[in-house]
């Protein structure tokens, strides 16, 4: 590995814990039983931040895993998206669930409201494929 290779920072948790923060800004070393006992950690703290996921994406890319890197970039975009919206988008992408307009609406919302441009592009790609393959919701509804 050459200098500047993101792989030299891997695993972040043990090699570069200084680079890792929880969504609320805690360091890994602050996620202790004591902190748990005093109620200073919440479930929202034990999640990866978009930044951490982007670092992992860069590591995957450096290891030659382009698609995994892209997946982790989409994950970084989704990290801040609320759970119920995630589940709704997933449902919308299942076959026969959405119209072209509905998928486009999700794409617009993802890029404008949720700051998830990569995922928006991905949803538009699906819309195009579903169009070609007749995978939209039946109009009868």
């Amino acid at each position, binding site marked *: 590995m050459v200098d500047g290779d993101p792989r030299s920072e891997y695993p972040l948790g043990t090699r570069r814990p200084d680079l890792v923060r929880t969504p609320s800004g805690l360091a890994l070393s602050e996620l202790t039983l004591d902190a748990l006992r005093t109620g200073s950690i919440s479930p929202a703290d034990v999640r990866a931040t978009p930044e951490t996921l982007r670092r992992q994406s860069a590591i995957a890319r450096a290891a030659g895993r382009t698609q995994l890197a892209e997946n982790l970039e989409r994950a970084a975009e989704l*990290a801040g998206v609320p759970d119920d919206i995630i589940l709704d988008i997933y449902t919308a992408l299942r076959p026969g669930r959405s119209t072209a307009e509905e998928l486009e609406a999700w794409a617009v919302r993802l890029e404008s409201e949720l700051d998830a441009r990569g995922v928006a592009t991905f949803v538009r*790609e699906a819309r195009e494929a579903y169009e070609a393959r007749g995978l939209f919701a039946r109009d009868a509804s």
Partner: protein
Amino acid sequence: MSDSQRAEARAARDVHKETLVSPAAPLGLVALAGPGDPEPTLVVEDGRVVELDGRTAAEFDVIDRFIAAHGVDLEAAAEAMALPELELARRLVDVDQPRSELVRLSRGLTPARLARVIALLDPVEMMFALKKLRARRRPANQAHVTNRKENPALLAADAAEAAARGFAEVETTVGVARYAPLNAVAILVGSQIGRPGVITQCSVEERRNLQLGIQGLTTYSETLSVYGTERCFVDGDDTPWSKAFLASAYASRGIKVRFTSGAGAEALMGHAEGCSMLYLEARCLCAIRAAGSQGVQNGGISTVALAMALPAGTREILAENLLAAWLDLEVASGNDAISSHSQIRKTAKLMGQFLPGTDFVTSGYSVMPRYDNVFGGGNYDADDVDDWLTLQRDWQVDGGIEPLAEADATRIREQAARAIQAVFAELGFPGITDEEVELATTGYDSRDLPDRDRAADVLAGDRVLNEGISGLDVALALDRTGYSEAAEAVLGMQRLRVGADYLQTSAIVGPSFEVDSAVNNPNEYEGPGTGYRLEGERWKLLQRVPGELDPAVFAVEDGRGPRLVSLGEAAAGGPEDEVVIAVGPAFLDGMRETIGGLPHEAVIAALADGVRAAGGRPRIVRIRRTSDVAFIGHDGARLSGSRVAVGLQSKGTAVIHRADLEPLDNLELFGMAPLLTLESYKAIGGNAAAYALGRPASPVPTEIDNYARAKLIVRTVLMHASETEAVERDAPPLDLALELQG
């Protein structure tokens, strides 16, 4: 009814319980190289794939579209697609071709080309290529933990044992969907008691599955199924885009994901479109990589028996695993669902993955007995563990399971059952009784445990979801009830999600939460002397299988018990009716019983009785210069007044010899020492006397046990070694008297 009894016996064998079928390509019942598989083609225009495996962009189905958009690396494509298939196949088994180079080329190949190249390899070539192409340096294994009563104490105990046995991942599922949260909690607690760092999943419907992960009750998921035809994909209620989105969603919550695919699913669902299993799997794997999954579980999985019903089906399954590894995916290589009734066939199939080693040799080894495997059986289960350990020891191969002493297993199981009892109490879930804890620790399967109030349990399961009870709550409950180490471990699992290191390819987690993946520990096997080899401490550990004999076991001499007392040097000649009983150097002098467990003094007495009953006169002699039964017998015969003797080794092997015969010739030889009884020794004495007195003797009938050698060869060697050690080359024979008091 058959005319031949042999044919009838064969028809009753286990292998005939399954249905083998001849290929039927239109139904997708063809393993490799189906007539419907397309010619590999790839046409790229303006940086876009416009033709893939014989279809133009306008004809692309949803899978083609996804692969064209994300699954072909255009930088490698021109070079890779131009290489002849045979050349690519040869490179896969070329020890000097580094994995990274082969992976680079795989990225530029289409599904049809990938399938054709793999199909050129024979089974041994596939195994070698798989060994080279596995992503992580060291192989590992995954456990299944379920039970039919969904008893939380038993789930926790089994998860703990799985973790303590070295499984890197533990997967559970449910009989009743609403149990999922409780089962997830039970194996989370159990696994962390068995060994911190083991990652867990609860395989249920996608939404619920994701929810459990979001709440930190699970850390990985492999429920993302992919199919090789559009119709199957849609029937599975997904598209490549919805699955890929889901994968990103899991990753966004810090949950490890691998996809699932495997031969036969399309044929089973009725939409194989006339293609071979391997070609359809190649499409799956290209789509999986295109979705950005770090890995896959494949190799038949739940449809393994369908692939194995076809000619070359077992080879096709190995081909799938290999193809996934070539595409740089983590591979959990099946061997989880029951593949065959025949133990021979099942294990022969396993060797394809076991010997090369995969990231997870099974995608679920049933840690509990088969009855409790809710996944539908379990190809290998609790009863097979010692067999598995012995296979590892036989081949010096790491199959990812460690020996665990019974006392340790019991201790860990009880601790886990107690811990989940405490957690349930602390969280206000329906109580777990002490009886349940006890029986979860020591029982065979869930039938040994009392029934629980299932209505109350599922309500508690609902509470977990409704109240958002999280991994942190579980850690806190453990801490409050005195299980601070387990609390620390469950918290460690939560911390893992923050760093997200285990989202990289082939990641597993060690006991100090250090992540071991294809990034920091890649497989760099390039022939002998390189890569992962089972050696050092790990090899020592995996050698210690239950029941292993200590070679020193026969070296007992405490000077007690009956003895043979020397009466002085033995001279040749004596009465004409004399029959010498010549014993070996260690007989009742360092050794005390035969390999069949007969006390030496009883054997001597039986031989002497037999000699006397037939009118002979016994004389006991010890031959000290040799441990070989022929020479002991022959030396004895030369001392004997009748020139006939019985030679007897300490392990019980006997011979009737006569002085005029060549040493290696004999009158009667009794090599099956383990099957000799005192009655047989008496009969041997009788025959020896008959020969001595010149009377006819019909040979002593002996039993034959074809397994005696397999069963006793080790003891034979150890006992013979003890006897040989007692040899004194130049020592003359001694006359002996049996002294019964010690």
